[in-house]
């Protein structure tokens, strides 16, 4: 029987790795500035070990007790949300190129398509109404300079 390592083991290791990174970022800071981060880091290190040990213990449990286990990073669970995140990241980066309004006009539709919508009329209406409201409220009324950068920055 293949030994099924509970994911908490890996999670514990990842947490410990994080603790090491934090340690290097904070040691040697002058003026007592590093004290609190290092203290917190120590607590995190202890907790990481607890998680790791807990994972080891759970690995040794017989199969029936482990039935309800949810796996954290199956391809299925991660793929779609991550792709969506990439789309949002792309949207944000698009601000720098085309400005908020053009980026939103395009990407809102893209996101809706990704979310499997096919009702074009509703999608376009929402897109346009949203842009109009945002423009009036933010740029005209409140002076928020969101469209101030990017090649096609200023719409009006």
């Amino acid at each position, binding site marked *: 029987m293949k030994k099924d390592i509970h994911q908490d083991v890996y999670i514990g290791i990842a947490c410990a790795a994080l603790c090491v990174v934090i340690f290097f970022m904070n040691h040697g800071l002058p003026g007592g*500035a590093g004290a609190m981060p290092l203290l917190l880091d120590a607590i995190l290190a202890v907790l990481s070990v607890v998680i790791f040990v807990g994972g080891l213990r759970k690995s040794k449990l017989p199969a029936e007790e482990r039935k309800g286990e949810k796996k954290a990073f199956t391809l299925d669970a991660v793929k779609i*949300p991550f792709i*969506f*995140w990439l789309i949002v990241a792309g949207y944000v980066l698009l601000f720098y190129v085309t400005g908020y309004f053009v980026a939103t006009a395009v990407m809102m539709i893209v996101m809706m398509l*990704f979310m499997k919508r096919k009702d074009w009329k509703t999608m376009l209406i929402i897109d346009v109404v949203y842009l109009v409201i945002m423009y009036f409220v933010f740029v005209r009324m409140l002076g928020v300079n969101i469209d101030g950068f990017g090649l096609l920055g200023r719409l009006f």
Partner: protein
Amino acid sequence: MLQNILLGFAQLASWDVLLALLIGTAGGMIVGALPGFSAAMGVSLLIPLTYGMNGTAALVMLTAMYTSAIYGGSITAILCHTPGTPASAATAIDGFQLTKQGRGMEAMGVATVSSAIGGTVSAIIMLFVAPALGKFSLKFSVLEYFLLAVFGLTVIASLAGENIVKGLFSGVLGLLLGCVGLDALAGVPRMTMGNINLEDGINFVPALIGLFSVAQVMSLAYDVHHGKTGSVIEDEENLKHSRVLPPWKETKTLIPSQIRSSLVGTIVGIVPAAGAGVSSWICYSLGKRFSKHPEKFGHGAMDGVASCEAGNNAATGGALIPLITLGLPGSSVAAILMGGLMIHGLTPGASMFTKNAPTTYGIMVGFLIANILMGLIGLFAARYIARVSSAPMGLLGPVIVCLCCIGTFAIRNNMFDVLVMLVFGLIGFVLKRCGFAAPPLILGMVLSDICENNWRRTLILAGAKGGLFKYFIGRPIAIVLFLLVLVSFLSPIIMNAVSKKAKSSALEK
């Protein structure tokens, strides 16, 4: 004093003040509800616009916006699990579960009534006791702020969800993330990686929006691709019997929570730096502790919604008290409101109750009415607003994302904050998958600076005054707070031990 209150009412008897009240209340609800837009943002963007209005009208509008934005946040927190303001993050936990059960409208009704109660109680306290309370808040200094922050931290355990260890990890990680930035006492950059945008720390509003809203839409995307193409509501059955408030039998059980949260919330609000957000977590945790069914918390406890919402709105009134009486803001939004006061020539402090008394009382009465009005508008509109939750996820999700982007940017005209939001969206998703609860992370981030800075200041101050112990003993409020912290920290442990003993002795019998 009574005649001052009447004077205050008289101030409201003019069209521009009444209109300002209405716009502030209704506008605040909208601002609060929209994910990405927080109360702080709404108020700070509104201030320059009021420049030109009469002082009473302007401040009535701003304070009305404050309280109803804090309420408004609950709308999207409940319906879409995307808290419209940081103060509603706790409401999202149980509120969204209720929406999934098809009871979203009832949850909104409860949130509305609770918010109105919380705000009104704090408004009444403010109206009658403000000057005296002002002096009370002067007694709070660095040691008291520290102890209060620690008390807030003890609440983390009750928010940890199923895995206490991982919940604690989240909380401590949150505290660490709160340390990012220029050290307040030594001016040394910590974990900023040379980026100037991080010098003031990770702005927790974008972090919260990322953790809750962006991560939520990511998981909506997952749902959509696995066949759930409708709305977030899972249990359509309940929709047929939708009502704005739960039946009286259930609603009346919520009253003790609402009153307790209102009082606690007002006090937390009075303490500087602890505002609606911290108050909501503390009241949520207290609600769970005093509840007859604590196991329901996290899975759709109406009591959870009632406690947070009463707590966060009560804190708004509470925060205004030291602001008006001393110029010491009780919360970060109150700090922004201070600018609003100054723009209209009102200097917080003694003069508010002497030469500016009519205006001041006008503002306080306006605030009271705003809370009541907010409750009425909310109840009336709940039916229609709740329909949002029936919208298809595929349409709602992208709109939420776009709103979050512009709202996050608007906080300080800085694209970096939008990037922070993006990063935290990913973090939120990873945390959820690995079983780490998100609320402790946020609480840790919010409380980190208050905790650390005030502790270090206490050491300096006490050092100059003869030592920590001597300093501590001479401060009764600090002693009380310390005991509260001990009780809060130990009580779950003790209760656990007590119930284990009870169980084992019952078994023996």
